[in-house]
């Protein structure tokens, strides 16, 4: 056993008695460093559950301030934090929930200049961003730094979850080699989103993060989980590594971060 405090043994008792977690797994969680991209719909449950689980270092990056229209789904924020920076609001929630957690609140945009520097300080990245330029940026930065990227994305009543693990499975570009042209896929802002949907999808991402940290179960690598809230249906599709992938294929043509706004023909406005 490790040097848990009495309070920690009490707090994490339900984990510690699980054979798959145990004291060893809980210690791994406390030592783990996870970066959440976005403190929005997906980032909320991701941060809440990872904080509750005792993931020792949580980074959160977001540039936005809490708006009343966020509260329908971004449950880490509340009416009192409307107008505050999302990262500050999220940090306060986490610190109240679990004082074991060190929170790195990064107010700003992830971009080609800072992504590698930020990501390299973490073991795992959770992508809860909300635009294509950031999705491709996160992917490439994770491939270059060899960090698993626990991906979640949502639209109206549908969600997609997968784990991109460099070396072990496909990356985001293997799945979607190119982004849709601007305007072809509406954003949540334009198309709406069921408030609970990111709760389901973000919670699934949190589960995958914990599995990766404790090294148990079968991580969602090489499989795309689709959730259809209207049909109450979960399906899994097979994802394969594309040997022609420009970042992780046999002969990569992209070997450093590029201009993702130009690549996608759209600004990364909403992260």
């Amino acid at each position, binding site marked *: 056993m490790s040097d848990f405090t009495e309070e920690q043994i009490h707090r994490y008792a339900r984990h510690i008695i699980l054979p798959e977690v145990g004291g060893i797994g809980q210690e791994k969680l406390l030592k783990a460093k996870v970066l959440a991209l*976005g403190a*929005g*719909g*997906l*980032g909320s449950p991701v941060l809440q559950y990872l904080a509750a689980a005792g993931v020792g270092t949580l980074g959160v990056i977001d540039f936005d301030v809490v708006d009343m229209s966020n509260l329908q789904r971004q449950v880490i924020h509340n009416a009192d934090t409307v107008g505050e920076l999302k990262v500050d609001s999220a940090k306060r929630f986490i610190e109240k929930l679990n004082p074991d957690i060190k929170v790195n609140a990064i107010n700003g945009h992830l971009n080609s200049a800072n992504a590698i520097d930020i990501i390299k300080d973490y073991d795992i990245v959770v*992508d*809860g*961003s*909300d*635009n*294509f330029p950031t*999705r491709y940026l996160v992917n490439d930065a994770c491939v270059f730094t060899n960090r698993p990227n626990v991906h*979640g*994305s*949502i*639209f*109206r*009543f*549908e969600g*997609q979850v997968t784990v991109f693990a460099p070396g072990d499975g496909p990356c985001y570009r293997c*799945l*979607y*080699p*190119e*982004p*849709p042209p601007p305007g*072809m*896929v*509406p*954003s*949540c802002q334009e*198309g709406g*989103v069921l408030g609970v949907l*990111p709760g389901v999808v973000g919670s699934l991402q949190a589960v995958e993060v914990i599995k990766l940290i404790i090294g148990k179960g079968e991580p969602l690598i090489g499989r*795309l989980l*689709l959730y*259809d809230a*209207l*049909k109450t249906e979960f*399906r*899994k*599709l*097979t*994802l*394969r590594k*594309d040997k022609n992938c420009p970042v992780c294929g046999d002969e990569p043509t992209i070997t450093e971060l590029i201009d993702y706004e130009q690549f996608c023909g759209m600004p990364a406005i909403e992260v």
Partner: protein
Amino acid sequence: MAKVTVRIPTPLQKITGSKGQVDAEGNNVKDMFTNLEKQYPGIWERVYDEKNTLRRFINIYVNEEDIRFLDGENTALKDGDDISVIPAIAGG
């Protein structure tokens, strides 16, 4: 011709009259979309680009397999196949 079902993603359901699943026929994937276009005009150009190649942000799965790792649009279909059209979504 093989009779298959096609799952239509939310962004394309405007074309199918809000239907999330439609019946279609075709001996291969391209054939199936050609037939589907007659039934639901407009669907072709959402899945194929102006050069008539499959768009690279939409994946087509036959049962659980991505056709890019089968025979692409020439992937043969058989009765009862479950076709999924899965576009990239970015919301978070």
